[in-house]
């Protein structure tokens, strides 16, 4: 038995960065292809139950309807009876529902923002993140066939989750006005402004403070500033705190803030941030979570953030398939019926 959930964000990869930067579009047709490949991979990995989270565009449901499931495997594909409204709350609700349904692993199609929503709905989910967004740091570029295969292998128990995953870091954010806590998986940024507007962030002059859970040099987006100044990779504890502007600018770093868009970014300080160490951000300004302006912080309003490694179990696709191969999982001696063929 192995249950794999799949969540697709139909809105990923279509925002203003196709205009203000050089991001490529991700069409619905492309996403449906990703869903199909991931589901076929999961089935081949050993999943016996696929739970499809519906989306407003019906991408997942349309993709699985077109699959040739005559693979010799016994598999049930179910579409969750959960309403999809077409906003980010959908992803959060679908992740919560998959937790209740007992999914062993979840395949998530989207950018950093989508993965964040999944974590908001199910913090300790075991997930395989597939990038269909813009400048993604959290999900890696991986072919969906292999991503699905890895999700299936772990769900079916062929490979132990603990051997091939790491616990993602999370910047937990709480607000002094009593509103609901929030979180970021890659970076949390306080910037000048009064509106969330078109949501994407690409103007370096507006930055005031950056808290990066993932600070890797070879990434695109706001977290690349931290990654280029003080690398702390996704598996290492803690993060990086960068402060911009003010009277004490100490340096300039040239960083790709969006696809194909490099800027000289002035900063005043860069500090390593210990796990659990709180950072206070004070308004007015706008908070960007994982590259999207999402919340306006009124003048004097306070948000407190701290990084803890208590987020999703992120499945390493390469390691998973390698581990399965090392046990001869994919190998059969001639003369013995191959898996999936009736004797």
């Amino acid at each position, binding site marked *: 038995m192995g249950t794999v959930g799949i969540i697709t964000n139909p809105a990923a990869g279509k*925002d203003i960065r196709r205009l203000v930067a050089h991001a490529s579009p991700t*069409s619905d047709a492309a996403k449906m292809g990703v869903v199909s490949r991931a589901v076929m991979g999961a089935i081949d990995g050993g999943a016996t139950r696929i739970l499809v989270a519906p989306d407003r565009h*019906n991408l997942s449901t349309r993709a699985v309807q077109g699959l040739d499931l005559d693979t010799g495997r016994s598999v049930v594909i179910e579409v969750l009876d959960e309403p999809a*409204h077409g906003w980010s709350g959908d992803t959060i609700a679908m992740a919560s529902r998959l937790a209740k349904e007992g999914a062993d692993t979840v395949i998530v199609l989207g950018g950093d923002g989508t993965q964040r929503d999944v974590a908001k709905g199910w913090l300790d989910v075991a997930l395989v993140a597939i990038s269909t967004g813009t400048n993604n740091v959290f999900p890696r570029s991986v072919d969906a066939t292999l991503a699905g295969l890895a999700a299936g292998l772990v769900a079916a128990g062929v490979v132990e989750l603990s051997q091939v995953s790491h616990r993602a870091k999370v910047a937990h954010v709480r607000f002094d006005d009593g509103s609901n806590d929030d979180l970021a998986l890659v970076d949390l940024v306080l910037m000048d402004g009064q509106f969330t507007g078109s949501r994407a962030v690409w103007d370096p002059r507006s930055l005031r403070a950056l808290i990066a859970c993932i600070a890797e040099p070879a990434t695109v987006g706001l977290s690349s500033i931290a990654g280029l100044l003080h690398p702390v990779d996704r598996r290492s504890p803690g993060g990086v705190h960068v402060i911009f502007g003010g009277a004490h600018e100490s340096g300039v770093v040239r960083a790709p803030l969006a696809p194909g868009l490099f800027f000289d970014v002035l900063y005043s300080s860069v500090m390593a941030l210990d796990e659990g160490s709180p950072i206070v951000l004070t308004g007015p300004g706008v908070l960007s979570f994982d590259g999207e302006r999402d919340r306006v912080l*009124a003048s004097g309003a306070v948000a407190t953030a701290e990084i803890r490694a208590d987020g999703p179990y992120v499945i390493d696709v390469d390691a998973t398939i390698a581990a399965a191969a090392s046990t001869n999982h994919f190998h059969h001696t001639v003369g013995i019926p191959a898996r999936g063929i009736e004797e």
Partner: protein
Amino acid sequence: MEPTPDVLRDLHRRMVRIRLFEEAAGKLAEAAKLPGFLHLYVGEEAVAAGVCVNLTNADSITSTHRGHGHLVAKGGQFRPMMAELMGKATGYCNGKGGSMHISSLELGMLGANGIVGAGSPIAVGAAFTHKYRDDGNVAVAFFGDGATNIGAFHEAANMACALKLPIVFACENNEYGEFTRRDATMAITDIVDRAQGYGMPGVIVDGMDAVAVCEAAAEAIAYARAGHGPTLVEAKTYRFYNHHGVQNLGLKYRPDSEVEVWKQRDPIFTLEAKLADVGVLTTEQCEAVWVELRADIADAIAFAEDSPLPNKDQILEDVYTPMAVAQ
């Protein structure tokens, strides 16, 4: 990036002007004081206002059958607009255009259009003119999701991209083509997926968020002015009233609950709440704008009602270009 406080106040005023004009037109239609069909723009104000606040009178736009909002956003005055809807001689088109063919060349509004999809090729012509004259101006074609299923749209988009014209294709995706759900007439959900096929960038923006539309439109218009060519901006929006007329609930083709969900996101009220939060306009200042503009609407209705109908001698005026007759 973010619009300035002056632009935000301008944006708000344009949206309130559209709302009040449309609500007034709706009431007049119910009282049988307006001839013909009436397609109200209520609910979609953020799109026309968010785009047009970035344009000048020298920039061109083409509109749709739901066209009053675009003209108001482009600077249309209430008096000649209301007179035009009533078919009076003092209207923008001397009363001969009416709701669905209202235009003002002085304002760069090249016409509402009764034919779905027919505006885009006209905008491409205007964009060609701007490029040919090298005048630095741009064209914006407003159209709905349904129009993208029409051949004229494809020809327009293709030619605009082939000639790298200064044009923005501004799609108001309100989920319905007349009385038919979008998913009954196309296999894609996002109109922006079509942009790739012509070779232009396409972006989606929340059409109920005026600041978001304004930001995206500013970038698209700057892109066109800089000579980079066409773009497609798809605004996800919703019409609060029926396809035509004023009924909004109790219709068979869309559930009341869906209408109510969208009305919770009213683009004007959400903008007003944000403007009050950040101190750009207080609640009282917003209310003062409504009061002031309501008086303008009342004045425009009285003006239109008192205006004469065009006489029969004017029927052929503005139909043919005056030409010197050879002796």
